[in-house]
């Protein structure tokens, strides 16, 4: 069995729209996540990054490929034991803090729902204690447990969403664009908090986002996704300092800099899959170093790595 916390191998997720038309949202993606690290998944909308997260946690049933989590295969049919393993050890944080909390439940009960379902406490006091402890860690007040979601601001709601995931003490948290819906000043607060808690709880994150500057800040390793293919993966340093794939380069060039003199003259590098002449289905994975891999054909590899 693999020593990685999560091993995704050749994952495919197709959606059949009609008899003739199938959307290949994820088309053969492989990567792994080690315990306690953060893997950032970036790409534009429609690249399949959210789908990967949802397939791993089994909101979808993968079309083919294997996902192994702590040595247990979770991509096939799930028995009671596997389901319990998956649902308690892996948690998800959703994008929109306005939509992901049940408006008719009190915050304390929302956070404790996972504990209730899996009977993870002996008595009411222990349940209460667990909820209060995680709320305090998230910078929420004990009194807030009796309130309803609409009484909170966007940043606070996202904290509740994170508290609900982390109260289960998961080994892997899938964070699907957790900060995209928040204000800039609040984004930094939430990202710092997630980073602090990771140190404390030792959870690994799969951090899905399209904002590369935040991804750079939180991730140990990054995977760049385009049209359902993982085109490049490597450590944060590999991706930012030695990007190989033209799509990665165009993504990096699109990040705005907070420097007007530079920014005024800069023109983002365009990338159009149709006219680029690159066919992802022909490419194989080429390694540049132990950590840095890129999807391309042999000729492309030679062309892109030539200085």
């Amino acid at each position, binding site marked *: 069995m693999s020593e990685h916390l999560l091993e995704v191998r050749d994952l495919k997720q197709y959606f059949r729209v009609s008899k003739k038309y199938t959307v290949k949202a994820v088309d053969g993606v492989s990567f792994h996540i080690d315990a306690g690290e953060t893997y950032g998944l970036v790409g*534009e*909308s429609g690249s399949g990054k959210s789908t990967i997260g949802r397939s791993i946690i089994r909101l979808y049933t993968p079309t083919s490929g294997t996902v192994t989590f702590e040595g247990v295969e979770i991509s096939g049919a799930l028995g009671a034991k596997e389901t319990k393993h998956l649902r308690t050890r892996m948690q998800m944080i959703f994008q929109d803090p306005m939509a992901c909390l049940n408006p008719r439940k009190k915050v304390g009960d929302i956070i404790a729902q996972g504990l209730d379902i899996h009977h993870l406490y002996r008595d009411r006091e222990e349940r209460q204690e667990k909820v209060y402890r995680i709320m305090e860690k998230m910078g929420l007040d004990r009194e807030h447990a009796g309130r309803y979601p609409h009484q909170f*601001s*966007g*940043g*606070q709601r996202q904290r509740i969403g994170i508290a609900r995931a982390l109260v289960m003490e998961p080994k892997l948290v899938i964070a699907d664009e957790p900060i995209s819906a928040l*204000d*800039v*000043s*609040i*984004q*930094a*607060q939430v*990202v*710092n908090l997630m*980073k602090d808690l990771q140190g404390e709880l030792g959870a690994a994150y799969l951090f899905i986002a*399209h*904002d*590369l*500057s*935040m991804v*750079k*800040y939180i991730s140990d390793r990054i995977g760049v996704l385009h049209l359902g293919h993982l085109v490049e993966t490597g450590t*944060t340093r590999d991706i*930012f300092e030695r990007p190989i794939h033209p799509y990665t380069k*165009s*993504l*990096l*060039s*699109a*990040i*705005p*800099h*907070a*420097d*007007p*003199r*530079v*920014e*005024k*003259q*800069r*023109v*983002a590098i*365009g*990338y159009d899959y149709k006219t680029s002449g690159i066919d992802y289905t022909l490419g194989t994975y080429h390694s540049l170093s132990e950590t840095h891999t890129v999807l391309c054909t042999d000729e492309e590899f030679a062309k892109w790595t030539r200085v």
Partner: protein
Amino acid sequence: MEKTLTIRDLSVSFQATGGTVRAVRGVDLDLYQGETLAIVGESGSGKSVTVKAIMGIVSSNQTIDSGSICYRFQQDGEWTETELLNLSRNEMRQKINGTHIAMVFQDPMTSLDPTMSIGMQLMEGMMHHLHYSKAQARERALELLNMVGITDAEKRMKNYPHQLSGGMRQRVVIAIALSCRPDILICDEPTTALDVTIQAKILELIQEIQKKTGISVIYITHDLGVVAKVADYVAVMYAGRIVEKGTVEDIFYDPRHPYTWGLLSSMPDISTDAPDRLYTIPGSPPNMVDLPAGDPFAPRNPFALEADFKAEPPTFQISPTHYAATWLLDDRAPQVEMPESLRSRIQAMTEGGGVCV
């Protein structure tokens, strides 16, 4: 340069269940012809309410308490002045909206009519405002679609909004906004709903159009990277007031207000190695129903003086273009410097000058 829009002492409030929300409190702004103005702030800072007041978009529980919005425009070679706040809703719709001041909204999915082809939506405004014939409008619509970079314009005219991608839709919205040749284009977070790669394209497109047609643009955004790219002049809003305004160089290289310091510091810097922690502005935006006495930013301000909790600071002038509302600029205030990390970053920027990743 000619001044086209002058806002003085604008105050807007809303009647909400919790009480009166004073969303905009005494805003002064100028817009010059051909210039790009960016209004930056968090949600609830009053930036959208300000520009909606310019457009005459007023909700039923909203009152404009004071102020003036003076719009100057060239008609038959002569400059005419109109006070926008004196115009009725109908007059605004007939005379100003679309033909003089047009707006691009945040979400291209909700600002287009899903039941109407995009060609029809483009032509509608021109036929109504400019009394174009259908053939004339069609010709101009094709021209506009080409201008905003939509290929195969002829075919696209027959498409419905759901057949286009997000970036395409926003291009169509921009084309519609430009169709009646406005003098001022207001963009309310035009790229927030879009991907970074598409965002860069749309911003470059608006810049290009501006160069060609010489219109003035007002951007509303909370992304300082976007501001750096497009703006000539920047206004930073907090809790309904402009806390600092100046040219883009003033704001980025010589910021004076602690809130601007916080905003600049909390932007992750991609050109250097990631620090261990991101800088954050502590706390959250104030409740606008009962604002605390003094400066609303004081509770979140690590540099707050005693005076900040007692009275709201007036606006101090730093240079002919640069203003800030903070007691730190008062003669009696102690010397307070911006955080060290920000200082070194600005220094690196001004010295490095023009190095890209």
